[in-house]
């Protein structure tokens, strides 16, 4: 082997992969820590300024604790105790129902999740397609990008009922709403990413008399992947939001949207149930995010660019 300057490779790929895994574990631990801290702060706020504490974790407190201050938002109605919310999962969802809230919510989450996955897929494909068209044709970009941006200022919540009327099928409308919220970040990131390759790479391809399709597939698309994944992380959660938002006006049963509406109307009789739905919705969004992040770690494992989550 001829020596020329530094002959040894700088970093082994496996060492870098381990580093990435380590930071992911660190982030998860930090996340859990913050959640625990929040739970402590939650109860502390109630201790100081909530409703009187007569029992905690199922055990009575004698004599009851009367907090020195009173802030309306920390009352038992508005901020139920953490253990009440957690406990609600194992209690029946409605009186006389054979199903626990936990079971019902998990079913609802799967139901909504299915729409969200499809919405994400459709949105990602449409977004990427638009990006490819816009990179190909500057004219089309100038003509259409303002409207693409404008679509995001239209509250999709408002269009949803009309969508059901036009499309006719409820589930399709939900997927469309989900896709509507998903495609935009993908389009913008796609345009950036597809135009990101070094002009010299493009010249190189020209010197090979490579076809436009070749250039797209071999140069532009791989260069765009990091940008696309940043967008996918945003779109992952947007697709869940879209699915939930889409479910409500269409009145579709079985999903988280319906559950939110239902427990919102029943708030005074069981505030912890709404909070439980909030947590499940949050969890669904986070699950999608984590899946995309894991996929990113695999697909982009050989690149040098780091990300902070």
């Amino acid at each position, binding site marked *: 082997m001829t020596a020329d300057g530094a002959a040894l490779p700088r970093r082994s790929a496996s060492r870098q992969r381990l580093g990435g895994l380590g930071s992911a574990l660190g982030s998860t631990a930090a996340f859990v820590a913050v959640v625990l801290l929040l739970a402590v702060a939650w109860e502390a706020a109630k201790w100081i300024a909530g409703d009187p504490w007569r029992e905690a974790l199922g055990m009575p407190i004698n004599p009851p604790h009367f907090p020195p201050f009173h802030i309306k*938002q920390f009352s038992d109605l508005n901020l139920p105790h953490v253990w009440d919310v957690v406990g609600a999962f194992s209690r029946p969802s409605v009186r006389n129902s054979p199903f626990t809230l936990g079971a019902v919510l998990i079913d609802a989450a799967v139901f909504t999740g299915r729409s969200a996955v499809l919405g994400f897929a459709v949105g990602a494909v449409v977004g990427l397609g638009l990006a490819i068209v816009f990179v190909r044709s500057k004219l089309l970009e100038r003509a259409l990008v303002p409207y693409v941006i404008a679509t995001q200022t239209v509250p999709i*919540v408002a269009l949803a009922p009309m969508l059901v009327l036009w499309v006719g099928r409820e589930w399709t409308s939900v997927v469309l709403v989900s896709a509507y919220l998903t495609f935009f970040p993908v389009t913008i990131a796609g345009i950036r990413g597809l135009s990101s390759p070094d002009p010299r790479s493009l010249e190189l391809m020209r010197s090979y008399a490579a076809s436009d399709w070749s250039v797209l597939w071999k140069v532009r698309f791989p260069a765009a992947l990091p940008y696309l994944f940043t967008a996918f992380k945003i779109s992952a959660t947007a697709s869940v939001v879209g699915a939930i938002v889409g479910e*409500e006006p269409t009145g579709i049963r079985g999903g988280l949207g319906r559950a939110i509406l239902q427990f919102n109307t029943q708030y005074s009789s069981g505030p912890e149930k709404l909070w439980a739905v909030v947590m499940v919705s949050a969890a669904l969004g986070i699950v999608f995010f984590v899946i995309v992040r894991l996929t990113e770690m695999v697909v982009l494992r050989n690149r040098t660019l780091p990300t902070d*989550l």
Partner: protein
Amino acid sequence: MTRLRYYLPAVAVFVLVIAGWELLVALLHIERFLLPPPSEIVRSLVEEWPTLSAAGTTTLIEAVGGFFIGLAAGLVVAFATARFAVARAGLMPFAIAANAVPIVAFAPIMNNWFGVASPLSKMMIVSVLVFFPVMINVVRGLTSADPATLELMRSYAASEQEIVRKVRIPAALPYFFTALKVGATLSLIGAIVGEYFGGANDALGRLIVENAAFLHFSTAWAAIIIAAALGIAFYLLIITVERATMPWHASMRARDA
């Protein structure tokens, strides 16, 4: 290329779409209540202007109010976090995950906390929506300073405060404006989604929902157009502020949304 020529294709598309829409509805005899033609929508816009503008004002106030609350909170937390690497390592993952929580999940809770009829509840919803992008982006921005520049400042024995003022803040500006742009559009949408769950009647979200329920789609569309216009106006306002603050950078942003 002159400004005019640059925007010509977009304008052409607009004209074509409106004309095509109008023609299609007429030619295919589409039910007016299903898809109102532009002329019908404009008529509603004009006729119902008092209601629409009042509603628009309410929603705008909610959106802008929430925007500033979220902005302030985001900035405070970002500056506090950026300073301490430990806080950063802990809070960033949480913030990014929290950003993943669907707004629709906590909108009803905010309504319950701050009163359904009060604009404050919608402002709080908006502020939560705006808080996270601001915090995440400003932290990224503050920590994005080129290490070579920081070394230079240290060689001048510059104080930490001076470094923040002269290096970190200018470096953070592009990220800050990205966050503002995201926040601007989110704030309108957040206000409307919040209203969807209940609120005073003279707000755009409620107008849209109620008119759609009664199949008065042309009024609903008119309200939607106003909502979109407000969002675009807010966004353009941010861009104007950005161009004024960072003329050197804005010119590079030809490709940015």
